[in-house]
């Protein structure tokens, strides 16, 4: 398998071009700070959605507590950058690692549960994290954590998004990734084939939590201020909605889902009274008329031929 084949080179140059165009547009002020804020929010949502898609869409483990990992990452990064004065990349890496550790700790016992029981256990975990954060005075408690230095910019957000997407995409093409997909398809059959299901479920959970932590870190260091209520059950649902809307088991679906839903909620800002009602109706309509989400479990391909050649090279 060649790393620098035609398809990969095309994608890399496309990404660099995309980055430079936005960097120029943002630094010259053609796109104002309000749009920058929304672009960074989209990046954070993509990271969260891709991570949750690995857990729910590819490994088939139904998690309703993804925002808890984001919360852990956000608070870790806030403590490291604001209280301890460390540089941002220390904060971002440690947020990821601590969230992943939390994922492992909560994953080992709960991933024995199946389906809705796992969902409700992770939901409980999310609420517990929120309530603990509400009651620790060191991190501000219910008032929230103030004065976090603003380090997140387009470069960090874009870099982390690309990192998350590429890592998870490559993970899914690896031996471990195929084991995860096998668990989704049929857990008992996978186990019979000699796959250590608990190990791979926890692995997928830890990777998803790692990126949720990074997303939390980006969030905390962009908005100066975080509070436990920002990472409640509804936030987990928001992430899940992006994943299902885009299509379970489709990385590009998650990216498109994050962008489309962010744009929809941006457009609905003008009718703030009816915003949630319209949002609920759109969600309902999508589920009714396209239950598999926008992309199903297909990937979106522009360079069909190139990518296919790429796939066969990998296979």
């Amino acid at each position: 398998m060649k790393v620098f084949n035609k398809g990969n080179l095309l994608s890399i140059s496309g990404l660099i071009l995309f980055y430079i165009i936005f960097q120029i547009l943002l630094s010259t002020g053609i796109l104002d700070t309000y749009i920058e804020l929304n672009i960074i929010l989209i990046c954070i949502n993509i990271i969260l959605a891709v991570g949750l898609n690995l857990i729910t869409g590819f490994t088939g483990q139904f998690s309703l507590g993804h925002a808890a990992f984001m919360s852990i990452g956000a608070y870790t990064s806030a403590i490291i950058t604001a209280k301890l004065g460390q540089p941002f990349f220390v904060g971002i890496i440690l947020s990821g690692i601590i969230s992943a550790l939390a994922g492992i700790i909560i994953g080992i016992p709960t991933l024995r549960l199946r389906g809705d029981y796992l969902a409700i256990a992770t939901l409980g975990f999310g609420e517990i994290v929120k309530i603990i954060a509400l009651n620790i005075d060191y991190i501000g408690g219910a008032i929230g954590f103030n004065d976090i230095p603003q380090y997140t910019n387009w470069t960090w957000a874009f870099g982390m998004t690309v990192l998350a997407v590429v890592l998870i995409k490559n993970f899914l093409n690896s031996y471990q990734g195929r084991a995860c997909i096998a668990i989704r398809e049929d857990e008992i059959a996978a186990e019979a084939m000699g796959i250590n299901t608990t190990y791979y479920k926890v692995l997928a959970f830890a990777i998803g939590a790692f990126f949720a932590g990074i997303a939390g870190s980006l969030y905390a260091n962009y908005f100066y201020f975080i509070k436990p209520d920002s990472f409640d059950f509804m936030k987990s649902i928001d992430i899940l909605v992006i994943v299902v809307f885009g299509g379970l088991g489709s990385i590009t679906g998650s990216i498109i889902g994050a962008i489309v839903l962010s744009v929809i909620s941006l457009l609905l800002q003008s009718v703030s009274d009816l915003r949630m009602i319209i949002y609920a109706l759109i969600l309902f309509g999508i589920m009714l008329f396209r239950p598999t989400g926008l992309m199903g479990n297909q990937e979106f391909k522009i360079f069909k031929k190139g990518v296919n050649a790429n796939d066969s090279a990998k296979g």
Partner: protein
Amino acid sequence: MEQVIQQLINGISLGSIYALMALGYTMVYGIINLINFAHGDIYMIGAYIGFALTTFLNLGFFPSLIISMAVTSLLGVVIEKIAYKPLRKSARITALITAISISLLLEYTMMYFAGPQARTFPKVLKSKSISFLKGNVIMDIKNIYILMITLILMIALQCIVKKTKMGKAMRATSFDSEAAELMGINVDKVISFTFAIGSALAGAAGVLVGIYYNTINPLMGSLPGLKAFVAAVLGGIGTIPGAVLGGFSLGMIETIVSANGGSIYKDAVAFLILIIVLLLKPNGLLGKSIKEKV
């Protein structure tokens, strides 16, 4: 000692409300395997209907309770027909997201029309407290009403499920819906009936919580809804006695934790107990374990 009895009384009242809601969750889950996230909002609507009837029409407590139950059961059936029926064959997660969208729709539609502010529920029951044990234990007439109504509704439910033909059809459908259909049971009708009963119980719980706490707001359903689901899982989802046991235990646990100075942690304790119970007994306290077949 007095303290313990007092907490017991408060715990039973709170537990009754959780138990009534948990019954709706458990019946719907038992029949179509759906976590009906909109259930908590049906409870909210029940509370608002009770509020409107008692405040604007000056109806008494019992007429309001019955009308509220009737309207919410109709609402439950309509939601099932419009939202869940077309998705019965699709993936569980799709149905779940639909349930969440219905929940958001109900919450924010109510907020749009009734306003986001909390409303004060009128005092329809004459406040009469009975104190005993040298006045150390106070029991309000509200507590007795809540417990009695809950018990009556539960006995009625038990009769419906165990004695009537519809109840038999419900049990058959929850056991194996395909086989039930082959035996000539109209599964659609059974599901609608289940939603009607579950929603009526949630509506009753809404009115009861209105007279208990005297305040209602459009988002009041989301956290109690989750906790009632926790109660249903705690007792073993799909089993009716389990929902009752789970509801009362959750109410007790919350009251005990609050009474011992941990009121800020009471939700965390409820969820922690849920996780522990699930780890030790994955099917809940009274749930039957199901063997997996390949």
